Structure formats: structure tokens, C-alpha cells
């Protein structure tokens, strides 16, 4: 079972993600800010992280940069209300990008795609 870390400042969104992704067969751990996210990361390994870009006064992009630097084997999917971040070069560090929607189909597809890619990479070493 893949273990996912979901970071979003909205409690209801964390709950929604947790419920929906658990239904998809993932183990989901949530965090409301960067400090909490780092704490969860210290506690155990994750197969993938889903990050919101706007975390109240913090930036999900900063967390993304930190994760790429420190945990480059863990893929990250950015999830935001802003489609414009797709063109932000700092967001290119992420493995996937999803615009927030009540319909989580796209997010679920993206998680599956990124995890499959990670598995393929682990298998082939490429």
C-alpha cells in the first residue's frame, strides 16, 4: 500500500483528500503546514507527497524545493487553485501538477501515473 503525505492548510480539503484517497487504497497522512509536514516526514517514509501551493503565509513551492533537495526519491504533486503556476518554472520541479477541483479524478490519475513512473524507475534504475 503506497503511503501518501497530503499538505494543505484547509482542514476540510485534507479530510476530503484523506477519505477519497483511502478509498483508492492509499495510506494517507495529512499536514496543515510546512513544520507539520517536516515532522511527519521525520516520523516515516512516504511514497509521494501532494502539496498545496498556498499554505496561508507559507509557500508550498518552498516546501517542494526542500523536498527535492532532501528527499529527491519522493515524487511530489502540486495541487493549487491557480492554473498559472503551471508556467512558473519553480513549479517544474514537481512531478505533477493538478488544478484543484471537487472532482478528484484528475488528481487520482496523476497520483497513479507518478507512482507507476516511480515504480518503473525503481525497476529499471532509469
Amino acid at each position, binding site marked *: 500500500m503506497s503511503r501518501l503525505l497530503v499538505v494543505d492548510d*484547509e482542514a*476540510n*480539503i485534507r479530510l*476530503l483528500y484523506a*477519505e*477519497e484517497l483511502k478509498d483508492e487504497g492509499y495510506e494517507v497522512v495529512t499536514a496543515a503546514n510546512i513544520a507539520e509536514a517536516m515532522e511527519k516526514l521525520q516520523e516515516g517514509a512516504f511514497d509521494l507527497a501532494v502539496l498545496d501551493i*498556498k499554505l496561508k503565509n507559507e509557500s508550498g513551492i518552498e516546501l517542494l524545493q526542500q523536498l527535492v533537495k532532501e528527499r529527491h526519491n519522493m515524487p511530489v504533486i502540486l495541487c493549487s*487553485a*491557480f*492554473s*498559472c503556476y503551471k508556467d512558473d518554472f519553480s513549479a517544474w520541479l514537481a512531478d505533477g501538477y493538478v*488544478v*484543484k*477541483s*471537487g*472532482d*478528484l479524478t484528475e488528481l487520482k490519475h496523476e497520483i497513479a501515473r507518478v507512482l507507476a513512473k516511480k515504480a518503473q524507475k525503481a525497476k529499471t534504475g532509469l
Partner: protein
Amino acid sequence: MGDCPNIREGDEDLLLSQRRRILEKCCDCANFKRDLKRFCENGHPLASVFSLVHDEHQRQKTQIQSLVSFLDNKTLEVRFLHELGSVLQSSVDLEEVLSVALTAITAGKGFGMNRAILLLTDRSHAQLKGYLAIGPRNYEEASQVWDEIASNDMDLQTLAQNFRLNKLSAERAKFHDILEQLSVPLDATDHILIKALDGKHPLLIEDAFHHPDVTPGLASLLGVDTFLLMPLHSRNRRIGLIIADNCITHHRISDEDMLSLETFTFPVAFAIERASLYDRLQLELNRVTEASNKLQEQQELIVRMEKMALVGRITSSIAHSIRNPLMIIGGFARSILKSTPASDPKRDFIESIVSETRQLEGVLDEILNYSDSLYPTRDFWDVNRVVETAIRDLQDRLIQRGCECRFEPEANLPQAYIDIKQVSYCLRTLILNDIDGRTGENIRIQISGNSDSIQVSIADKDRNVSQDELDSLLTPFSISHDIGNGLGMALCRTMLDKQGIPLVVIAPPEGGITYTITLPTHKEEPS
């Protein structure tokens, strides 16, 4: 007039004064000279005294006449200089000043020289360069010009104006060859022209072809043996040099001519400098005016950009404030829907929530795609279909408002080269703007076109819009309660502008409002 043969008609007053009669007439009278001769021959003791007194009287009379003639000439010269000064002082136009100066040198009533060539200092290139010349090139031309001047008794200003308007360009062209070759570096202090320029006083060059300071090239170029070099100085600044000569008549240039011309050069130099400064001032003024206009345009642009930046901030705020709750509502509704049996009567309500949130997310996407409007993605589309789809999308709201929207597709139209998403958004916004907050409106959409463009008009005959409302219509957040909040219209305009599609809004005083957009049918980029 009595017995005196020298008193004629008009000299009657001399009959009243014997003293005047003797002084003015008798001394020159042949009878008096004959009597005086006889007087001497007879050996009268006073004869030698009479002779001496008579000779001295005649000498002084001649001297006085000469002085009177000199004073008359000087009076004419002063009058001419006064006229010249008046004309020069009243002008700040360089061409006019130069025309006056050169005309004064060559006009018969002026200094009467045959030819004048003006050289001006070019500080940027550190050169003394030929600028303008006036005068005939040969005797035939000279006699023709002088006859013409003699037949028209014109004052200096009129002569100069006539020259400027009718002859300036021709004279420039006529002397082009000479002017082109008259170019001397200002630091060539051995050159006769620079020597004259630095010397500050007129310099008469005689026997030019053998003059040690005159190069054969210069003498040959001017083609005269004698010429005058007159430097033009103003406040110790070297303005230029005038070369004057009598190349046709070969009249001698006298010392008096030189003195007169020296007096003339001061106001000319001053006027040339003033006119040049005025030219530069005018140039600077034009630059400042141009810069001011650009600044004003930039300010207006900044104001527009600030307004649009405000739109950007508002949409950003909307994105975060609305999308998250929408996502939560829609997301949980979908979750509940998944676990709700098909037979559950509440399933319809949940489906409605899912459907409405999806629609709201779509609207939000459109607003947030505002930034994408900067980079439209265009392709060829059937405009009839685009309009029909826009109306269908709004059908529910039209019915709800009791509005009627009439549209008859136009056959045989070419496809339009547009960003379909943006143009659809604009059509929906224009229609919605019309029915916003109103009921019972009648909207008519018409399409017309040719091979180059397609016009889509959305008209509402029942709507009355004031000029102020019309002006604020396309400004973001300039709220008009009658025609909506203006945000959608501003986005429309931005989107259409980026595609080079004009949006024209017409609201005639008699009522009604018509929006017209003209869609391109070719792939050319908008200019």
C-alpha cells in the same frame, strides 16, 4: 528776371536778398568773371584781393558740397542699416535671417555687391561650411535680375521675402557645387577663411590668384581676383563668414564699403545666432512636447494597467477564496453520491450540488483564465455554431429572465480565425450583460460577413444607456447598476484586443445598445 541771366523761374526769392544773390549766383556768373578779369587787366589795386577771395569761396563751396554728398550717403546708409536692423530683429527664422542678410549685401539699395556666399560654423563637426549663396553666375543672368529688381521698387524686407519664397532653393541648387567645396576645418588656422574668421574684421583679398594666403583651389573656385571676407561674431562666438565680391561688374571694393559692411556684420551675426538658438530651442521644445505626450500616454497606460492589475488581484483572491469551498462542497457531494443508492430520493439533490459546483468551477476557470487571454490559442471555427452554443449555454438564464434571444444562422460564411474559448466567453458575457438584472428583454443577434471578416452584432433595442455608463462600460470595476459591474466587459475587451478583434459599443441617444465584434477570417497576426 530783370537783367540777370542766372536768375530763372523759381529763383524769385533771390531778388529780395542781394547778399544771397551775390553768393549763390554772381560768383559763378560769366559776366562777373569777365568783369573780374578786366578788373585785373586794368591793374586795379584790389584786383588780386578779389581774385583770392573768389577762389577761396569756390574752394569752400566745393568742399561743402562734397560734405553734403557724404552726409547724404551716410544718411542713406544709416536708414538702410536701421531698416536692416528692424527686419533682422523681428525675425527668429534662420532662413529668413539669412535671406535678409544676403539680400542686403547684394541689393542695389544695400551694399550693391554682385555675389555673397555665407559659410556657417558647424560645431559638431568642427568645420566652417558653405551654407547659402546669392547672386548671378553670369552677366546675362545679372542683367535680367537687376532689371527685374529695378522695375519693382521693393523695400529690403519685401526683397528678402521674395528671395526666400521664390529663389532660396534655386540659389542653393545653383551654388551647390561651390557650397559643397567650401568646407574648412576650424582648426586649420593657416587657411585664409579661418584666418579671416579669427581676425574679427573684414579682410579684403586682392590679386587672389597670386595671394600668398589664398590657395589656388579657393581662388579658382570663387573665380574672382578680388573678394571681401567678413567674419560674423556674436559675443565672441564664431558664427560664420560671408564672402562678397563683384564677380560680374568687377567694381572696386572701397575702404568705405568695408567699413559699412563691418557695421552690417554685427546685427547679422547676432540675428543668425539668435535664429539658430531659436531653432534649437524649437527642436528641444518639440522633443519636450513629444516626451510629455509619451509620458502622458505612459501615465494613462499605467492607470489602465493598475486597473487591470486590480482585476488580477481580485481574480487571485477569488481563486483562493472560492475555489477551495467549491472544491470541498463538490468533493464531498461526490463522495456522498458514490455511497447513495440510486433509489434514494435525496440523490437528485446531491447530483444537483455536484452539477452546480461543476458549473461554478467552470465559471471560475473562465475568470482565472484571464491571464491566459494574453496568449490566445486561435484556430478556424464556424461562427454560427459558436453563437448557437453560447445561446444554448445561457438558455436557462434567458428563460428564467423571460428574455428572448433571436438568432438566425447566416449561410455561406467563411470560418473565423479565433480563440473559441475566449470568443465564446465574450459572447456569453455580452448577452449576459444585456439581460443582467432585467426581464423581458429582446435581444437580437445578427451575423454578416465577407471573405475578410465576420461581424457579430448583439442588439437590444429596449435598453437605454447614458454616455457616462457607456464610457465606464469597458473599465474594470467601474460599476454601472444599469449594465452590470463591468468586470466581464473589461475581460472581454482584453481578450478581444489580444486577438486583434475590435469591440464597438453603440448607444444612440434615441435608445438601444448594440455590441459589434469583427472576427478575422485569415491567419494574419493582428497589427
